[in-house]
């Protein structure tokens, strides 16, 4: 058999290593390059469909697209230009579109593919022109502007006379795009849940047409790249990968399409080339997809470049011991069912270096060779990670660093039904602790307290007002939208106002998995420091928002309610001054 070079491997590597700018992942590059065997990747996204619809109208509105580098702003601009009948877009054309519009049916469209590329003056000028057109429907000028949110806000802060423009931009960025607005739609691509595209992307990357050439390669049987491509076509594994992405999104991280492409390319190739694999020595188990996906210790360079990989590495999947899982891995299974599954999982495949793992494992169990025994233990993190992706006996979330992932998942699955009462009470208790910074035991009401933090004596938090647990709902709300691929369900806290409040609008507050974890841990006695950096500010903002909305307007100045340390816990006390100017303890 001849030496074979699979051109798709090179294609993938262009995403990850060759140029420092990951040029392959840039839209401009893709548009100009030679397509691979199964054609270039064309993700079907709602936002693209929406934009094309919008611009097919006779009088389209202006559109601002905000998002990170890699969210697809340039790509979308290019697609819109196509519908306007524009030829192949070049650098020169981009530049000219800022001041010389492209016309169609009386609409004059100015396109700014990157507001940050313009000077500050020019940027302000564009926004100024946009602002002017807002109030003037007869104005035929329309704008399609792609920008980073930071730059946009900075330029707006320098245009104080364009208050209306700032207001509508702010409002749409905070509350979602107003897709029926006829003058200006502001879409924040940061809201796109890239996890939605995981299956489609992996399907394309593992398309058999791309791997056909491997059949002829003599290194075929020891090649981890080919193995990875094969495995990642498996639905169960794809689903697990998607879960990981969803988890990151639930943590509040935004992943761009570019991030994902680079990440998956590396997951498959591990930064290796056909030649390197063909010339490589024996043990290639470290290049398996479930090591690449978290970044490998021997490739610090890639880890540094890929933000997504760093985020996943933080989860430390496989690095912590879980007794049941470790026992399963090392013992080979206790029951015959388990043994069967173990044999299927840890057979003679590339990722366990064929017979190596089982040999080491047996040496460990038999207690024979000391150095080999140590090797068996070295396999543990590796095997745990494999179980995360393909194990069927143990729940994968045992390997995640969350204590309340199961409860979170339960909430997810039961969205629409009433939440389990016990979980809600625990949550309320945790929230009480987070607000008051004391280990309270209340779980029937949510107490909004205030206290003087630097008292030289023990603080007695004053209760500003309280909300009964019946007013509180915790559930996964459907947040899907037609025009954009966002997370389908988001954890929401819905709090109805107490009787003492004038304001009758309930408060809706979105939570991520970290905030949920933070609060639940507090409820079971956890330390205030855990996850404080990530969550404390958010919780404080929730409290401030509750005070702003629900603080009683007619203060009962004759009642004071407070928590007092008594014996082993904080107890609620109430004092009132009645009509006869007497003090009443209640």
């Amino acid at each position, binding site marked *: 058999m001849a030496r074979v070079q699979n051109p798709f491997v090179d294609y993938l590597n262009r995403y990850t290593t060759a140029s420092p700018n990951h040029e392959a992942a840039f839209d401009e590059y893709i548009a100009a390059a030679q397509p691979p065997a199964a054609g270039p990747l064309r993700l079907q996204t709602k936002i693209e469909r929406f934009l094309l619809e919008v611009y097919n109208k006779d009088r389209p509105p202006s559109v601002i697209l905000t998002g990170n580098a890699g969210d697809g702003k340039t790509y979308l601009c290019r697609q819109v230009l196509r519908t306007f009948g524009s030829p192949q877009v070049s650098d020169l054309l981009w530049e000219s579109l800022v001041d010389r519009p492209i016309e169609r049916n009386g609409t004059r469209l100015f396109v700014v593919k990157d507001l940050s590329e313009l000077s500050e003056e020019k940027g302000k000028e564009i926004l100024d022109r946009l602002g002017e057109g807002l109030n003037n429907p007869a104005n035929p000028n329309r704008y399609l502007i792609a920008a980073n*949110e*930071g730059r946009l*806000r*900075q330029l707006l802060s320098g245009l104080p006379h364009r208050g209306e423009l700032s207001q509508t931009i702010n409002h749409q960025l905070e509350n979602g795009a107003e897709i029926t607005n006829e003058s200006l739609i502001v879409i924040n691509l940061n809201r796109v849940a890239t996890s939605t595209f995981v299956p489609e992307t992996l399907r394309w990357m593992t398309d058999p047409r791309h791997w056909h050439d491997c059949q002829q390669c003599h290194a075929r049987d020891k090649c981890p790249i080919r193995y990875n491509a094969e495995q990642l076509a498996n639905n169960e594994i794809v689903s697990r990968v998607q879960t990981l992405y969803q988890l990151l999104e639930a943590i509040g991280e935004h992943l761009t399409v570019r991030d994902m492409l680079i990440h998956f390319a590396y997951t498959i190739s591990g930064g290796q080339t056909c030649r390197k694999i063909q010339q490589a020595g024996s043990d290639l188990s470290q290049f398996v997809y479930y090591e690449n996906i978290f970044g490998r210790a021997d490739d610090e360079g890639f880890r540094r470049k890929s933000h997504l990989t760093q985020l996943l590495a933080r989860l430390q999947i496989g690095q912590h011991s879980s007794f049941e899982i470790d026992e399963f891995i090392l013992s080979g299974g206790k029951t015959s069912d388990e043994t069967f599954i173990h044999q299927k999982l840890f057979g003679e495949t590339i990722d366990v270096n064929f017979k190596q793992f089982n040999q080491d494992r047996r040496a460990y169990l038999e207690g024979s060779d000391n150095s080999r025994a140590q090797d068996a233990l070295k396999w543990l993190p590796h095997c745990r990670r494999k179980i995360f992706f393909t194990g069927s006996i143990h729940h994968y979330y045992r390997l995640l660093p969350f204590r309340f992932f199961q409860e979170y998942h339960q909430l997810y699955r039961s969205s629409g039904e009433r939440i389990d009462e016990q979980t809600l009470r625990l949550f309320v208790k945790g929230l009480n602790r987070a607000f008051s910074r004391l280990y309270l035991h209340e779980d029937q009401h949510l107490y909004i307290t205030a206290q003087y933090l630097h008292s030289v004596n023990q603080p007695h938090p004053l209760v500003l007002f309280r909300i009964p647990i019946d007013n509180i709902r915790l559930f996964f709300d459907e947040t899907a939208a037609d025009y954009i691929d966002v997370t389908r369900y988001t954890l929401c806290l819905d709090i109805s106002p107490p009787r003492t409040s004038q304001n009758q609008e309930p408060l809706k507050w979105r939570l991520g998995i970290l905030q949920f974890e933070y609060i639940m841990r507090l409820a079971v006695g956890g330390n205030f420091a855990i996850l404080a950096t990530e969550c404390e500010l958010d919780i404080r903002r929730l409290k401030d928002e509750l005070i702003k909305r629900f603080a009683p307007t007619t203060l009962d100045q*004759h009642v*004071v309610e407070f928590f007092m340390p008594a014996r082993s816990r904080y107890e609620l006390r109430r004092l009132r001054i009645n009509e006869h*100017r007497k*003090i*009443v*303890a209640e």
Partner: protein
Amino acid sequence: MNVYGQFQRDEKYPLEALIWGHRLRDNQHWIEYLLEFLSVLVGYDYSFGRGTQPHQKYRIPKRLGLRRFIFYDKYEKTQDSRDDRAVKMLREALVNKVEQNKYDAEATLQQIQVLLRSFAVIEDNRSWYAKSLFPAHENLLLWEALRKRSTKDTYRGPVDHFSADDLDESIEFNARNFFARGGELYYLIISAGTEHDSERRERIARSLWRLLTEQNQSLGELASLIDQTWQEQKQSPDNDAQGSPGWIPDPDCKLYQQFAEDLDILLDNSLDALESLELLAHLICFHVILYIYHRAHPQHDPSLCQTGKCLDVCRPELLIDIPGDEESQKVRSLSANQLRLHEQWQVERVRRYIKAKVEAIAKQTPPDQFLDQIRAEVDRYLGGIRRKGREQFEKNMQSFEPKVLAGYTAHMLDQVVESLDEVMGRNFRDHFVSVHRRLGRSIGLIAPLRGPQPRFVLGDNLLKTLTMTVIPAGKTMTFGQFLETLYARYGIIIGPGEARKAQFFKRSRTNEGVFARNRDRFLLRMKLAGLLTQYSDATAMVHRP
């Protein structure tokens, strides 16, 4: 001399007062600036601009019943049988004020006492009459009191027949050991700063009124009920005590207006009262420190204050050390130098003052009367100078006699100045020069609290306070603009841009990189404190928390 406030012609003001007004003193706790300020304001019915005429006194509610109830217990430092009895009387009366129900009245009283005491802001090992509460409500403001001679003598007389009025006798309110007039000074500063802006004056007064009366009304009610119960035990209810303020120099100084502006913007917030007051306390002390540095600046001159140029010329140079690892040591030592420099400025200011006086006298007096004039000058400032100091001073004077008669020389004048400094500057060194350090440490401007290399830092609360004075409600600005504004207004130096403006690179052999990293760490601090949002393209916008 141009002053604002009540300047007593025949009073012997020490040197530092003539430079920095009457007065600031080091034994005033940082929170007491807030307490005194608010008390004076309330004492003038929430109006600024009073106190310039001799008859304008502010009233001070005594609240002795309340204070004893909260603070006087068996652990009290200065036990007094009169107070024992007073507390007993009050509690007996209070029991009748508690509704009979399933809860024990004594226990209820105990709860109230503990609740109110949980707002104690200074206990230290002071006597009950010098302890204070955080002003969660106007009725919790307690002015420093003193039972005459209580630390020296123990009252041994019989008390059983004493009336409530008798028991309160001999407690006075003008000791000014802790409420040492720093808060008064601030009241005058804000009054002077809003002299030509009645709208701002109104707004500030109104915000403070709301802070002290709109929230925590129930606490205020409780406190009021307790004190009233004590009043009911007396034959005639208390008259409020009274006080009159000191004074500040250069009423037109633009710095006062800047302070008023800061205050105005800070008070426009939607925080709860307790948090708002805490930030206010930080701002007041920060302003006091800036005020000290401003007038100590080598180029400070009253004529500058008239024109408004003083803000630019006399800007301090507060190089802030944002801690990190590695080579932040460089910034740390530069910052420590700056702190020493700002203290040195004060010392030299005093010296300059004396020198100017001596030179003026030398100009106007023939040599043979020179020393007598000097002695007269000393007498004018210090009536009761201690004997030992006086002796040394006299000795020095006598040794100068022969030299003076020979004619004025610069060297001789310097020696006279030095000798005068020793005598007249004693109070300054003992009680004034440490004010800025003490306050600085309390508000998080100077670190460490104890330990080597004290330098300028920015604690989280102070940082939050300054963000809220620089950025009005509802607005944002870029990080760069924020740094520029901090420098323009307060002389705060963090990054290379401001370091260059203050000409740091010329004077010390550092490079930009050190300051750039300092600035980067500061950005991260602000992010963690929720004051800054950084977008994916690295644009950083500062906003209120």
